[in-house]
């Protein structure tokens, strides 16, 4: 037992099994020191409001590297929204890949998707809000290849996908990139 060790009765005080008044008089000072130590514990609540969209954005990034044959069967079913439809002949159009787009935008009244796959038409591909979660989704079948896109929030704000890499659009904004 070193000089720094609290007396066993003081440890019981810290544990809440004894009160300061129940300590022998010679241990009171040590007891008070111990209680000051406990009083310095920081119990300020901590809130992390950004975690929800950060997690969902991270999952979206991972969606694009899902390899269903490596996953547990149940998860593979969950991930099965990526379906490859192979071309019958080499001259056939590129295979289609079904992709789900997700944006967490709790305050939005409408969200749509515009990109190289729909002639940048901000009205062609609306996302659907999932309940009251603020999560908006759309599922598209896109040809394998490279696509650039952005979300259009409330018909006005062009927002890159937080879960995808992005490049300069030549107009001072960013386009998200999807490589299938």
């Amino acid at each position, binding site marked *: 037992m070193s000089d720094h060790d609290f007396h066993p009765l003081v440890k019981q005080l810290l544990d809440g099994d004894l009160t300061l008044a129940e300590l022998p008089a010679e241990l009171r000072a040590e007891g008070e020191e111990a209680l000051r130590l406990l009083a310095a514990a920081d119990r300020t609540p901590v809130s992390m409001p950004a975690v929800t969209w950060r997690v969902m954005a*991270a999952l979206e*990034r*991972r969606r*694009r*590297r899902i*390899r269903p044959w*490596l996953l547990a069967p149940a998860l593979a079913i969950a991930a099965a929204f990526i379906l490859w439809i192979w071309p019958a002949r080499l001259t056939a*159009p*590129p295979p*289609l890949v079904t992709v789900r787009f997700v944006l967490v935008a709790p305050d939005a009244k409408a969200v749509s998707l*515009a990109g*190289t*796959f*729909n*002639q*940048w*038409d*901000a009205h*062609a*591909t*609306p996302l*659907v809000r999932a309940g009251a979660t603020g999560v908006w989704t*759309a*599922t*598209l*079948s*896109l*040809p394998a*290849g*490279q696509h*650039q896109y952005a979300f259009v929030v409330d018909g006005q704000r*062009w927002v890159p996908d937080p879960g995808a*890499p*992005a*490049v*300069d*659009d*030549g*107009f001072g*904004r960013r*386009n998200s*990139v999807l*490589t*299938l």
Partner: protein
Amino acid sequence: MLTLLAVPLTLLTIQQPGAIAQRLAGRVSPNVAALVEQLGTAGSARGLPVDPLIQKAIEGSAKGIPDDRVAAAVRRVATLLDTAAAALREGGLASDTLAITAGAFAITAGLSANDITALARVGARPQALTVGLRVAGTLAALGVPPAENIALVSVSLRSGKSAADLLLLPADVESEVAKGLTPAAAAAGLSRAAAAQARHGPPPGHGQERPHPPAPPHP
């Protein structure tokens, strides 16, 4: 509501007279349409793709960008296509509109003409090179520096990785970055692994990696 697109866009060269005007009709101003027609026709004659010009014009108009800035962006795309085509020729690849489009994208994302030439010199088939260029552009957009980027895509192309495997490289880099590596270190590590795999075949248990389970109560 699910929106399924029945008509996928193609990146084929459009050479029929009036085809460009048809694509742009009602979508962009007459001035921008005339510029795209002019640049597109001239580019087509040199074997360049036209679709990226059309897309940029439509994109600018949809985003409400003033005509002069849309025109500048379209001209820039035309220049990028020329640069990419020259870089690919330098690397020994004859005109291939898909590869040129992918090369122009890679330059937009931060790679140089020399980087494009380096990838072309790997000697992969045009289809594989096109995927490699798209992936290299995506890696650049993720922050992988050119040296590590080209090394990774080159070794992957040389080892004959399938298109599906190439397409997983960006996500593999992101996964390593999520563990705390820089994009450069992540790409370098994947390059080493790909090179080792090319020499010795896949390591035992490769592909079986799983996130580790929760700790026991007394770690």
